[in-house]
């Protein structure tokens, strides 16, 4: 019984790592740019499909292909910021939001044309035989995904805390006008933020795409999940997104096992509604703070 529980928690944490990556990207973009990015799921999908093509079709080394896929999604994010979002800056919140909705329709349908709608798998180079740690069984690709997610989260943390660009991002988050006055290149910060957020979503796509099916509409559910994560953690809260992501992964895994697999995808949102009733500013109750 206990072993089974631990097994579900471990599975949940691994998936939750992917959710956390998605959530961090979304929360940074929202916190700094005040844009709710509805194309976030499509960046996730792009990451998975690029890996599929680079590794599966072109036969490039899996790890190299993963890194290239993530970087490519980051570049796509930078282009989107420059071409679509920058001209819309200063408009009411729903305008850039609607632009990202349009972008999500475009990317999803472009993916259907490029890769056809049928679900695909990525034949990753890991052994399918599960690693056994006491009572827990985990296949190698999941261990890799979990470890990689943790590494990326820690890397992001250092990027934001320690680098010049990361500091500029935090300054812009706190007060965009003030940051501009003290010489922060806000245009550059916005582009970096969107690019970075997109790349994190792409990374989640690379990692979870190696575990699950890859198909053009895969971003829809993933985007829903990241919205849940971001509300749980508090909009714009970096740490909140990590905890929210892991929590959602575990809650889903346990919910599917002990309650109902049909309602698995609803758990995040039910938690949110409860949370709003009791802790309206997110798990940590700190609004408007970037940690």
């Amino acid at each position, binding site marked *: 019984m206990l072993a089974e529980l631990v097994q579900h928690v471990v599975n949940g944490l691994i998936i939750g790592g992917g959710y956390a990556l998605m959530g961090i990207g979304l929360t940074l973009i*929202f916190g700094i740019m*005040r844009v*709710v990015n509805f194309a976030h799921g499509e960046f996730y999908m792009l990451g998975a499909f690029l890996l599929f093509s680079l590794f599966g079709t072109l036969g490039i080394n899996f790890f190299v292909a993963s890194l290239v896929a993530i970087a490519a999604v980051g570049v796509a994010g930078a282009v989107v910021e420059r071409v*679509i979002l920058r*001209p*819309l800056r200063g*408009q*009411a*919140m*729903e*305008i850039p*939001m*609607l*632009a990202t*909705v*349009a*972008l*999500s*329709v*475009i990317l*999803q*349908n*472009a993916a*259907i*044309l490029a890769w056809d709608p049928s679900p695909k798998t990525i034949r990753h180079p890991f052994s399918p035989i599960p690693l056994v740690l006491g009572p827990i069984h985990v296949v190698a690709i999941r261990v890799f995904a979990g470890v990689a997610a943790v590494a990326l989260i820690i890397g992001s943390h250092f990027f934001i805390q320690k680098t010049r660009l990361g500091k500029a991002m935090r300054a812009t988050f706190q007060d965009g006008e003030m940051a501009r006055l003290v010489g922060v290149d806000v245009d550059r910060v916005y582009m970096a933020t969107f690019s970075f957020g997109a790349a994190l979503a792409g990374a989640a796509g690379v990692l979870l795409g190696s575990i699950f099916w890859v198909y053009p509409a895969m971003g*829809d559910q993933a985007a*829903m999940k990241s*919205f*849940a994560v*971001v*509300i749980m953690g508090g*909009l714009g809260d970096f740490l909140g997104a990590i905890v929210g992501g892991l929590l959602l992964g575990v809650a889903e895994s346990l919910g599917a096992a002990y309650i*109902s697999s*049909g*309602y698995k*995808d*609803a758990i*995040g*949102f*039910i938690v*949110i*509604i409860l949370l*709003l*009733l009791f802790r*309206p500013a997110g798990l940590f109750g700190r609004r408007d703070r970037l940690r």
Partner: protein
Amino acid sequence: MKRPPSALVVLAVLAVLPLILDDYYVHLLIMAGIFFLPVAGMNLLLAGGQLTLGHTAFFGIGAYTSGLLALHWGVSPLYGMVIAAALSALVGYLLGKVTLRLRGAYFVLVTIGFAEVIRLIATNWIDLTQGPLGLPGVPPFDLGRASFTLTTKRQYYYLMLVFAALTYALCARLLRSRFGRALVAVRQNESLAESVGVSAYRVTLVAMVVACALAGIGGSYYGHYTMFLSPEVFSFYNTVTMVVMVVGGGQATVAGPAVGAVVFTFLPELLRMAVFYRMLLYGIILLLAVMFMPRGIVDALQRLRRRTPPPLPESTAPPVDALVGGVGAAGRGDTALRVQNVTVRFGGLTAVDDVTFALARSEILALIGPNGAGKTTVFNVITGFLTPTAGRVLADGVDLTRLPPHEVCRHGLVRMFQKASVFPERTALENVTIAGHRLGRAGFWALVFDTEAARREEAALATRARGLLAFTGLADRALEVAGNLSLGEQRLLGLAIALGPGPSVLLLDEPAAGLNPAETQRTMTLIQEIRRQGVSVLLVEHDMKMVMGVSDRIVVLNQGKKIAEGRPVEIQRDPEVIRAYLGSGGGSGEADARA
């Protein structure tokens, strides 16, 4: 635009259309009409600055409610529709109650989540909904009796036209009424709206309930028209369609949702020619539309024909006595406002430290002090924008300490903000009319049915607003959009707005900031005139000439503490005040809390 005739022409054209179009196009028009209902509701919410991305949930709740009632219990769809509307409205009310306190992006995300939960319930509650298979055989719509069952597309079309026309009229009324003005005010400047007595929470909640009821009606009709229910109605794609219609058509305009519903019902159909590329093209068109006409089709058209504003009807401005004072909560007792032992701490920083003072009836009291002394913080505490760590604020014996700004306004306290604070996209006249919100008595239904009383009240509010503009010297700028006024004019408009609710206590935060000497002089005269009408004035100001010239008494704050209180001559000689201002204490005032 001459509204009534053009509305009739449109209605006439719409009535003739099904006679000349074939069934396929009639079907599309019906679908456009069905979508118009929820979209018109979203538009109301959006007028108040709230974007819902879960509106399809209420559409679906409506569809399932009356569909299931008719299918399982033989309830006539007409009654089913009423129940559907009521249920959607109720669910919308509950969701709004939880989420509209947060608003903004939270509201957006929570509504998405809500729709997703409802979709999953509809998919998984197999006993009730047959899950993804859907429910075929939903009875067609009837008018309460089986003998009045709709059978042809044309019949569905004409009934749809009735619903759509009623919805259009309802939304037009609401948007142009006091309620609609309050919504727009919340969207354009929430703090200012709250300060003149508009509860952002209340008005957006009412909009939410109306929007959800409309969605329920649209959904119910949809179910009986297509005679099939499936969890697909809850899909996010449906919501996207609705958002595209409202924003693409022209949000916060009256005609926008209708235009959007028609255009974006037909557009995907026209794109069918593109077969595989259809949705891709749709996305691209959508993106281009957002980029190049972010305010929507209706707004773009209005820009093309460059409307000239209608001339302002001549009216005799009411005497100033009737404008200022008189309307506000009639003062009792000698003390208008009492601030008792107020302390405010931000983290470890004490911005206001145990401050006590009282404002006498019809007094002009100035609150001065070096930068960071805590003056604006005190203002924020008094007007309900900030809850103090300790202490109380009393007006006429009523404890205001924990009341939100719009309630504080109800007790007759209104502030003018430090920065130029107006509703930037509305005319000066509309700005001041909005500020009269609190004086309106007409309820929601009176506004909807445009009763005689509501109309008289509306006229009275407009007259009053014109009078206040005349009083502040802005009469000839009444039809200028507030954002286009000069800074000085915007400050005067801010004063007119603050007088809008008919305050008994007026709080002015640096009214002379950014004004030239002539404007400062005029403001001083106005303040004295306002006081002469029996309004008590609390003034924060740096311009010492103004402070010394206009105030009866002065309270001096330094580093959050009250260091002196007295008549201007006394204050000018007070050694501690001089020290605070000349900074022999070491200029630490600058390092203090920036209030």
